[in-house]
């Protein structure tokens, strides 16, 4: 299996998990919209309060529920992954387009993590599944593009990038550890109370 095929497998798997989570979120949102009398409750338990998140303006950044973006975008990731797995060779411009896509996704997720933790003050499990898959997708696509020179020769020649490749596993895990610590600190009274 070549490097690109391994990446393809990762993209297909990550995209699949992301798609399921986004779909569940969207269905829940429809349920909420369907039944106007349905009252989601504000919970003492910050980890289990999807209602307050779904009703926030941050949950519909572009005027429609965010999971719509996920339901549209994750299949692209899956398809790209499957094509790579089958041995497809993609043009440089395709990789660059994918790069723009994954960075946009990562930026959106980063913003949502911040809003969820520090503005809304609640977490929703399915949203966190989406966070968890978007990061490695973005990271490994970026690493591949840098190493292969799809983003310019400097990427392929940079010692920093080469070092990042060596430590790719640790780099993958660091954001998980960071977000976890942030969740612990932000909801300290919940965890210890």
């Amino acid at each position, binding site marked *: 299996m070549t490097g690109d095929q391994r990446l393809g497998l990762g993209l297909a798997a990550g995209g699949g998990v992301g798609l399921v989570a986004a779909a569940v979120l969207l269905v829940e949102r429809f349920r909420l919209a369907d*039944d106007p*009398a*349905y*009252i*989601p*409750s*504000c*919970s*003492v*338990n*910050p*980890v*289990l*309060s999807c*209602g*307050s998140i779904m*009703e*926030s303006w941050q949950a519909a950044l572009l005027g429609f529920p965010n999971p719509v973006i996920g339901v549209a975008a994750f299949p692209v990731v899956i398809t790209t992954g499957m094509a790579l797995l089958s041995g497809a060779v993609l043009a440089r411009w395709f990789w660059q387009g994918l790069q723009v896509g994954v960075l946009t996704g990562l930026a959106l997720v980063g913003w949502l993590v911040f809003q969820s933790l520090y*503005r*809304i*003050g*609640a977490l929703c499990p399915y949203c966190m599944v989406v966070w968890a898959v978007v990061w490695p997708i973005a990271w490994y696509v970026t690493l591949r593009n840098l190493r292969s020179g799809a983003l310019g020769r400097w990427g392929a020649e940079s010692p920093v990038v080469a070092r990042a490749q*060596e*430590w790719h*596993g*640790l780099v*993958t*895990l*660091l954001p*998980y*550890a960071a977000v*976890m610590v942030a*969740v*612990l600190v932000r909801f300290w*009274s*919940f*965890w210890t109370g």
Partner: protein
Amino acid sequence: MTNQNKAAVALGVLVTIAVVAMLLVVQSRGGDQPAPVATGSPEESMLVREDSRILGEEGSSGVTVVEFLDFECEACAAAYPAVEQLRQEYAGEVTFVARYFPLPGHFNAERAARAVESAARQGELEAMYQRMYETQAEWGEAQVPHDDLFRGFAEEIGLDMQQYDADYASDEVAARVQRDVDDGLELGVQGTPTFYVDGEPLQPRTYEDFTSAIDAALASS
């Protein structure tokens, strides 16, 4: 194994352990629903205290509707019109009790509860209670204190401002709000709004859920 892999595996194990531990905590906290409160049990006095705030007049039937509420909670604001309608429909019959349950995640919830309690001390519970929900969109979800806004409400209602200021800042009012919270936690209240109709926890999805529960309680009282 290379150093890189060792470091990654070590961190991976740590993260996994922490995630599992957090999930276990969530699991152990999330499961229990508020239990029914039996008549004559010690919990009954916890549900409606001597000094608990009653909206409007006490009902003649002895049936109570208790709501643990948070003025900053959107779901409570969503339930508010239904509760107002119930109060009209069952006026004189059923007693509606408001218990403060400001959630820690809501920056101004505890302040709002203190403002309402301060108003209640001057006999203006309802006016302040209604004002809070009707204006929630203006001040909810903020990360800055809204003491001045709440003070403005008190002025508009026509409270004695010297008294209001003293009450709002007093330890006594803060402790009064906290006693409601403590009762709620003791009863197993997990969030807001939490309703009890005659001691039975009720999770209403429609207005009819309320009326059928109240009608049943009235029939058996």
